[in-house]
């Protein structure tokens, strides 16, 4: 039973435009959320995170939004660049029970030059 879902397997965006990647979760106990980026033949690398006490966290071109009532988070990339082409995973955890991250199935982003 997938507790974290990314319903769009792929997304294509023109260079310079906004990319919006979505993630839904079912467990209301999740209180910490992360986005990871993965290039082919490499391991995932951390991109940005957000605690459930916030509804927005920004880091340069990347912004994560959290809507707790909808159990939904999204990653915005503005402006999108060809180097952003990768698979993006969202992940969630319950901080106090500690150690397990639950990952979504990933969204493959292609930024077209």
């Amino acid at each position: 039973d997938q507790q974290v879902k990314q319903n769009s397997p792929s997304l294509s965006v023109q260079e310079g435009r906004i990319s919006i990647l979505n993630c839904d979760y079912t467990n209301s106990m999740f209180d910490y959320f992360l986005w990871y980026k993965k290039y082919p033949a490499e391991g995932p690398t951390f991109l940005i995170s957000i605690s459930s006490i916030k509804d927005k966290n920004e880091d340069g071109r990347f912004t994560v939004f959290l809507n707790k009532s909808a159990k939904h988070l999204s990653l915005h990339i503005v402006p999108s660049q060809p180097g952003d082409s990768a698979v993006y995973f969202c992940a969630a955890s319950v901080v106090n029970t500690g150690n397990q991250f639950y990952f979504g199935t990933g969204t493959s982003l292609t930024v077209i030059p």
Partner: protein
Amino acid sequence: DAGITQSPRYKITETGRQVTLMCHQTWSHSYMFWYRQDLGHGLRLIYYSAAADITDKGEVPDGYVVSRSKTENFPLTLESATRSQTSVYFCASRGGGGARNEQFFGPGTRLTVL
């Protein structure tokens, strides 16, 4: 080399064979993790370890064995490989300080069980 490494990067084995995937990190991180990545499932936690000699099951532990005699190493063993264990395996580590700390992933091992 600093960081987290996995070996081998690619492995082909036969059903019923034992195979061990190695993971080594140089940061002295307390926590280490094993994930498998499959189409339609994303990354799923197999086992994790909070410190040397302390291990615990994740989401999909059946058919796997782990050990952690040294902080820097966390091998994953498939005692009798099955075709359903064909996957890409990622090792990860993080320091202490709680689950807010990011996990650092190795480059992965692609395992094929024939």
